[in-house]
């Protein structure tokens, strides 16, 4: 078995989410693989465009649903290439990789999902898994975006703003750039939408810190502020989970790119993570 070999997958749908992000729905050509492909929310795959290269992308669909989906932002060479691909095109997929969020451990507790920008992609997997399984107390989603136009999965978010409580899901949204659409949204959901950054969404919220877990994903700058907010509220560092990004090539702990830490503790983001607790961050320098 060659762990670097990817499986053929067909792009069955391409949906434009924003001007920079597209949602790719995939189906493995091999029926057996299609049926048996399972993963945990928070895991990622390596996308292989044969002849051009590979790059890591989080699974953004829930393991409870099909097809599997990837939300890909166009930022550089490879992602630009896949943005030009269409329904019917074949790419390679290998994985799933990484540890994922401990969904079983968190059963029966409140989940506080805190997403910044593209961080919504991996957390969407958690969100729908939690909603579909019905095994969690209450689900909070605090989502910070740049502007209305940048809201990923906008339809789903607006749906949850409207009907989330029925699904046990409490969604709040913060935007940074004021546009007419945002103001309109804010008027409709004055309790749930505000101008500001993601930490502003904590205002007025009470959590049972003994029975909650926080799951964070966003740009590197976000972690410090969000974690401080959570610690101030008395959440234990062991209940703070975050998913991290590094340059990755192999995905299985060989190529060395994702190594962080020092002489006493070295971690591979690809196989020891990408999900870590704040305890890990305290014992591994450079993790966040």
């Amino acid at each position, binding site marked *: 078995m060659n*762990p670097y070999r990817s499986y*053929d997958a067909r792009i069955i749908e391409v949906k434009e989410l924003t001007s920079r992000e597209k949602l790719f729905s995939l189906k493995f050509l091999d029926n057996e693989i299609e049926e048996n492909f399972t993963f945990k929310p928070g895991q990622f795959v390596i996308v292989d465009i044969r002849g051009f290269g590979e790059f890591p992308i989080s699974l953004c669909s829930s393991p409870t649903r099909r097809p599997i989906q990837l939300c890909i932002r166009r930022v550089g060479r490879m992602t630009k290439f896949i943005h030009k691909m269409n329904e019917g095109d074949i790419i390679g997929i290998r994985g799933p990789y990484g540890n994922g969020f401990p969904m079983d451990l968190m059963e029966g507790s409140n989940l506080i999902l805190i997403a910044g920008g593209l961080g919504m992609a991996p957390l969407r997997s958690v969100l729908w898994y939690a909603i579909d399984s019905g095994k969690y107390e209450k689900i909070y989603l605090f989502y910070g975006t740049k502007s209305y136009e940048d809201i990923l999965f906008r339809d789903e978010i607006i749906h949850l703003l409207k009907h989330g409580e029925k699904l046990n899901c409490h969604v709040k949204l913060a935007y940074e750039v004021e546009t007419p659409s945002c103001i309109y949204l804010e008027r409709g959901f004055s309790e749930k939408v505000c101008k500001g950054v993601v930490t502003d969404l904590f205002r007025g919220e009470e959590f049972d810190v003994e029975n909650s877990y926080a799951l964070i994903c966003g740009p590197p700058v976000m972690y410090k502020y969000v974690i401080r907010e959570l610690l101030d509220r008395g959440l234990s560092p062991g209940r703070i989970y975050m998913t991290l990004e590094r340059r990755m090539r192999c995905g299985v702990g060989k*190529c060395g790119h994702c190594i962080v830490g020092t002489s006493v503790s070295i971690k591979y983001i690809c196989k020891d993570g990408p999900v870590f607790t704040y305890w890990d961050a305290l014992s591994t320098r450079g993790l966040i």
Partner: protein
Amino acid sequence: MRYVKLHSEYFPEFFNRLKEVGRVYGPVRHNSTYRFEEVNSIDELSLDYTRTILPPKKFFIRPRDAMFKIQKNEVTEVDGDGKFVLFGVHSCDIHGIKILDKVYLSNPPDPYYERRRKNAFIVGISCMPDEYCFCKSLGTDFAMDGFDIFLHELPDGWLVRVGSVKGHEFVWENQDIFDDVTEEDLRNFKEFEEKRAKAFKKSLNKEGLADILDLAFTSKVWKKYAEKCLGCGNCTIVCPTCRCYEVCDTWVRAYEALRMRRYDSCFMPTHGLVAGGHNFRPTRLDRFRHRYYCKNYFDPEAGFNCVGCGRCDEFCPARIEHVKVLDEVREGLI
């Protein structure tokens, strides 16, 4: 362990028999440096070499290495070469391979590495340290395993330690050139080892080193040396335990590409760069320090990621000395 003796007069025949195992690669002199190269006769070998520029890792993780051939959507695994003999590997380099084994053979095993490891017949050889060697302080100056046979120099030949089933098979099938070990051989072996132990000029104080380094994250010593460092990455390329690689697809002709991997170095600014231009190790200081932390990561089961071969010192154009940097960081802490 089984011990046998190889008399000097049988040495050429021994070499010929090895050639039957597979292609033989051994240390060859080039002016003042040495390289592992294919050798066809013992005259080409320099058995008293100090260290080669590239360690034997180049036979298992190649500087440039094709993984897959890609034709449209057809992907085929590129097969490794056949059996080969690595002749004259020093103890530190054997330990280097053992460290690579831990990474490349752990789950999921790297198929390219695994295949080459199975194809390799490793013949170790005893050596005398020069001014750069500090393997003794890391316990990598003697190999108990990781080789098939190991040759220890005696005045009239070699004391051979047999370290694996493959090694046993070789000795078994070539009984005619090996003899029993005599008491005199053992005396000579002991004498050589004692002389060697005294010959080390450099040593690393590894007492509590991992914690000391961790505590000294903000030490000024890192900064001082990062300013001297040219960021060339030589120290990582020549290191027997450094193994970062980059992957890229290269087109060989229309509709045919090769997925290649090649050595990467944490000294390159792109090593920690991710999309959008964010760099997790943006400065030379970050990168310089990272290498020391990676090499001196202390695994309770296996020790450090450095085997004290001295290559990084010998081939550093800025003359930065590994042990000196670590000693200064230690001193700077208190």
